[in-house]
């Protein structure tokens, strides 16, 4: 009896050593379902970031331009969704083969391997094709959202949407193919987990070229060149928008693990959530302290930008850092915000919501910070990735803006700007029952 027990124990122990990797795996179809759920749920979280951008930008513009910024946000999300279906996805992911560009064709799902008599679910890394399309689509919409905030209050609606079409159908997918589509940058080993460069700096570069070509809002800089404050219409809305973005970011970074079919992936996603939250928190605290020291006041909008800056900074590598390093990476992002806002003002680059500091400056910083925790990443490769994506977006965006400027004009007239774009472009007001005191 005793021997029997021992034998049995030994047998089980021996079996478990042999079988431990296999026993840890769930059936392929189960992994397929979990991976698909991850994409769909996390993607829905990222979709909600569109609401965050809409509220943040609504709060940061003056009340005479709030309805227009709402229209721009709902329109750009829709245009991005359609064009990523029609051309963007395949341009980014289909037949890139270590090259520079995918295929010009419409996306269509191919789930044939997972259906029929003998479905093949691979190594636990498969998912429904449509869930991947959905998850990638909400990322391109995020890149487009970044541009609208910078250029708010003086760009005309339809030319702006024309640029959004160019960005979401052509510019974003082509540079995205270089890394996430398996193109030349991924061959070099460029590391950008969830898109500090590929999503955020792309939006930031497009916003920067737009701001340079469009010019500042009328009266934003006085005759001496000093910035004139144009306080936003609603700090509570800007705060709500920032919290919505913060929430969405768990999907943005967490979903970018791309799999939830094993304990290893579940643990990784949990770590990503923690690091994402810590970086945002570090960004807020650092921005508040810097604002207090520099301006003797805590500026709420800089604290909100600090959250976004921390989030963008951790996006290129949200998994590998320890919690402490994540706080530090986010805190540096928060400091970069407070110090780059006045630099932009000195250059008379009018960024209404602070998207260039948050998404471009922190996007670059976050991509460089990958080397602090990811031993496989090289600083040189990271710089090559940042510079090549930046150069491509600056050149293509500039062409887009300049063509739009020459053909239809991109700027509202001074009279329209002073009246407010809500009245001049839409004929409605965001708050028609409020008197302007």
């Amino acid at each position, binding site marked *: 009896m005793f021997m029997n027990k021992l034998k049995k124990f030994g047998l089980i122990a021996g079996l478990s050593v042999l079988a431990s990797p296999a026993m840890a795996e769930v059936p392929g179809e189960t992994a397929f379902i979990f991976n698909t759920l991850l994409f769909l749920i996390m993607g829905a979280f990222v979709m909600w970031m569109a609401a965050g951008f809409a509220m943040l930008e609504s709060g940061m513009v003056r009340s005479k331009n709030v309805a227009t910024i709402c229209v721009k946000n709902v329109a750009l999300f829709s245009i991005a969704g359609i064009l990523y279906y029609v051309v963007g996805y395949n341009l980014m992911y289909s037949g890139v083969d270590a090259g520079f560009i995918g295929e010009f064709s419409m996306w269509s799902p191919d789930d044939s391997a997972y259906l029929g008599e003998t479905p093949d679910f691979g190594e636990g890394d498969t998912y429904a094709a449509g869930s991947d399309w959905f998850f990638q689509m909400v990322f391109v919409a995020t890149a487009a959202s970044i541009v609208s905030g910078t250029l708010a209050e003086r760009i005309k609606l339809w030319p702006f949407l024309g640029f959004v079409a160019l960005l979401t159908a052509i510019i974003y997918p082509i540079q995205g193919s270089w890394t996430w589509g398996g193109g030349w940058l991924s061959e070099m080993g460029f590391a950008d987990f969830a898109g500090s460069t590929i999503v955020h700096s792309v939006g930031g570069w497009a916003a920067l070229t737009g701001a340079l070509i469009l010019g500042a809002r009328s009266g934003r800089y006085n005759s001496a060149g*000093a*910035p*004139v*404050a*144009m*306080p936003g219409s609603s700090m509570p809305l800007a705060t709500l928008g920032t919290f919505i973005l913060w929430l969405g970011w768990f999907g943005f970074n967490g979903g970018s693990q791309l799999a939830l079919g094993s304990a290893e992936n579940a643990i990784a996603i949990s770590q990503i959530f923690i690091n994402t939250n810590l970086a945002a928190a570090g960004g807020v605290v650092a921005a508040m302290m810097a604002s207090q020291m*520099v*301006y003797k*006041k805590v*500026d709420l*909008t*800089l604290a909100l930008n600090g959250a976004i800056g921390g989030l963008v900074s951790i996006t290129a590598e949200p998994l590998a850092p320890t919690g402490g390093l994540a706080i530090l990476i986010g805190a540096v992002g928060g400091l970069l915000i407070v110090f780059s*806002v*006045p630099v932009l*003002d000195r250059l008379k680059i009018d960024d209404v919501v*602070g998207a260039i500091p948050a998404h471009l400056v922190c996007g670059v910083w976050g991509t460089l910070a990958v080397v602090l925790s990811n031993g496989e990443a090289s600083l040189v490769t990271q710089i090559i990735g940042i510079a090549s994506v930046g150069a491509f977006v600056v050149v293509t965006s500039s062409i887009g803006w300049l063509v739009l400027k020459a053909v239809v004009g991109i700027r509202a007239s001074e009279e329209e700007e002073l009246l407010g774009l809500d009245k001049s472009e839409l004929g409605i007001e965001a708050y028609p029952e409020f008197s302007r*005191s």
Partner: protein
Amino acid sequence: MKLIIAIVKPFKLDAVREALTAAGVDGMTASEAKGFGRQKGQTEIYRGAEYEVNFLPKVRLEIVLDDDKVDAACEAIRSAANSEKIGDGKIFVLSVEEAIRIRTGETGAAAI
């Protein structure tokens, strides 16, 4: 009859109303106003850019009274609205030629 126009700080409105009621004033009109005096507004800061807010929010009170109540009313306003800080406001007293109650057509002191 006199018209008192008093410009006071908005957060002092309730204290002023109570003091005036205690001094026997039966009615008044209040409106939101903006302005500045020797104080010249204040400096605020937004995203690193300083800006002057010259027109500060104030409340403008209008009260029509019999001549014999004017001194008590002015004293009530002055004591209730006083925070001993710059920007506490002003009181103006003007003569009123006529007052008419719309509902009854009463005129003069009977109308106020």
